[in-house]
């Protein structure tokens, strides 16, 4: 088990290295650098001015050197002013070391956000916290609801409850966030007037039932159907097992059979599915946060991507890839722990 986890961690590190290299390559494509230069300068800046800006801020150095500096395996050179010879920071809103120093992601320096004009860490970590709050509520709604629906549907396969719940979960699985968001906003915010159509106030004034219910149910809807389908399939399979029949035949009530014998075994598969939902949840987070103007991680990611904010975008992709890989690992390890029949060698 230990060597399995260590090997997995090694593959994880390699994956993150490859992915950040790809992202680094893509954000540093010539058209993207031009776009950055234009957004940082006057719209009418000439090509020569843009070129000078890119040159001055170190975007014209060797690609691999810059990647090494970002990663923290090569020392970052201070930015010397051509006239005075003194070190000046590239961006006035971020401090920089005055002498050459290893200062990259490995040392905890994520760089400087050109869009928000703050160091990346200062923008990113509050946003992650905000998204953490959103995710907590989404999970708190989605997991119990979908498990209950799945268990109720799979308990008696082919019954009327099963049919109705199955159709309902197929329908929600066909409703991505940008659709359920529109439908829920129309119903609850405009027709009924119960809820707030925007979560912008949640960012600063705290989460309330009014401003947070819509983003949470919008995000939970899409996942609920999928997890409920998986739970149902797993429950149906378990209910057909011999030991369930034995338990019924020895005279236990249906209720006791479901709660005591079937449930635990039926919930192993959905656990994996819930864990593997994370890569998709990140997309959902982006859509929901943009739609309801909630300044979390997804919102930051979209802002960084649409403004080619290189350092912020790299940090965002690093974190999202990290989250995806960790959940994959947790799901594999958790599966082995939950299911005694599987022992990883």
């Amino acid at each position, binding site marked *: 088990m230990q060597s399995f986890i260590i090997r997995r961690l090694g593959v994880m590190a390699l994956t993150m290295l490859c992915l950040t290299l790809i992202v680094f390559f893509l954000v540093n494509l010539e*058209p993207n650098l031009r776009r950055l230069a234009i957004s940082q300068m006057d719209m009418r800046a000439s090509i020569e001015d843009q070129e000078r800006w890119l040159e001055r801020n170190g975007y014209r150095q060797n690609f691999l050197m810059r990647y090494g500096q970002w990663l923290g395996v090569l020392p970052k050179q201070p930015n010397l002013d051509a006239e005075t010879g003194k070190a000046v920071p590239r961006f006035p809103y971020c401090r920089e070391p005055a002498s050459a120093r290893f200062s990259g992601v490995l040392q905890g320096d994520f760089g400087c956000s050109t869009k928000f004009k703050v160091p990346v860490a200062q923008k990113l970590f509050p946003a992650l916290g905000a998204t953490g709050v959103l995710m907590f509520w989404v999970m708190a709604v989605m997991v119990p609801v979908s498990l209950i629906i799945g268990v109720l549907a799979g308990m008696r396969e082919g019954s009327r409850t099963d049919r109705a719940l199955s159709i309902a979960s197929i329908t929600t699985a*066909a409703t991505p966030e940008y659709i359920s968001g*529109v439908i829920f906003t129309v119903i609850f915010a405009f027709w009924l007037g119960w809820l707030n159509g925007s979560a912008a106030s949640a960012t600063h004034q705290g989460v309330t039932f009014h401003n947070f219910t819509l983003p949470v149910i919008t995000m939970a809807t899409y996942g609920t159907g999928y997890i409920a389908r998986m739970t149902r399939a797993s429950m149906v399979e378990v209910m057909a097992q011999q030991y369930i029949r034995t338990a019924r035949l020895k005279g236990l009530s249906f209720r006791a059979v479901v709660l005591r014998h079937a449930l635990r075994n039926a919930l192993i598969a959905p656990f994996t599915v819930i864990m593997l939902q994370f890569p*998709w949840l990140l997309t959902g987070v982006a859509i929901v946060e943009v739609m309801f103007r909630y300044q979390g991680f997804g919102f930051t*990611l979209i802002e960084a991507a649409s403004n080619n904010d290189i350092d912020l975008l790299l940090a965002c992709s690093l974190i999202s890839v990290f989250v995806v890989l960790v959940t994959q690992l947790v799901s594999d390890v958790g599966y082995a722990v939950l299911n005694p029949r599987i022992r990883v060698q």
Partner: protein
Amino acid sequence: MHLDSIGFPAIAAAMIARFLPVWIALAAILLPSFKFRKRLGLYGQLLETGVGVAGLAICLFWLFTAVFADIIAPFDPLRQIVIMKNAAPGTIEPESGLPFILGGDRLARDVFSRVVFGSQIVLVIAPAATLFSLMVGTMLGLPAGYYGGRVDGVLSFLANLVLAFPVILLFYLLVTPGIRETAIPQWLGGVFLVFPIAFFVMLFWTRYASRPGLLAVQLGATLLIGGWIYAGLVFDADPLRIISIAPNELNIFVAVVFASSPGVFRIVRGLTMDIRTRDYIAAAQTRGESPWYIMLWEVLPNARGPLIVDACLRIGYTAILLGALGYFGLGLAPESPDWGTAIKESSRLLRADVHPALPPVMALMSFVLGLNLVADALREQSMKD
């Protein structure tokens, strides 16, 4: 100025009347298939359950809507008739005397016509991209599952690399106007489009190598048609000018195939690893068949059930992805009538007007729902065997 309008029953009637070609086509397909369902194999089994019939009817409805869009839509989806700005559903356009059945949007275009024409974009890109990613995933997943070992290690690592990318980030990096200035979409497209051609070449080669006459015809046809499509799609150099694709569409297409083929790869690999242990594979190996013959003619046909179900779900998922692309304004032109762009446009103005938002929302939802129902019915049927 006051505009005449029609009431709700008249709106419903006008809509049903507009879709007349679709109803006729639906009846022409569904009634005979229902009658002969016992003889139609997997397709016939689909019609045995209510869920299957409903799903199939919804999918066919949108398919025929896309086919007959020119007849169904009363207005040009891009034409702006200023007087109809934000018109309520059923408002009659004075010049032609025809009603804006579902009202006008912010830019005074007919919402109904836009939804109808939007179906064309979704129904061309989503199934085509799914088909390509199926072939890419199959061509890579078969050897990975069959040989295992180092081949599997390398390919699985690459697939997991793409799968670890959050989809939205991938699209923001791969579908931008900037990237269209570079040759990257062409490169990616060039690499991905080789796989379908390779697929058919291998398919015929492994089976008919002993019959050179037949093989030559098949290979010639494959290379001719494949090369023609390849030239048209990748280099935009179709000599007959029939197949052409705008740079932004190629960009979207390539990105969707790129995002979706690792998923297919994983499924095909898993199925192949399972099927490889069966006796008929051992029998084929003993006969001395080549590995690719076994993969394409023994393993693949036996993996078709789960693959068909996955393909149905995947078309729906791709439609959702296309919608998300439109929602974020990536790739498609801002005036494009596709459903995602329409949802983006109207969802920002929900407070003012609700009616332009609901039709594209319902369209996308029902289409994906139809595909999910078909997939569900197919899965149920395959469980029975």
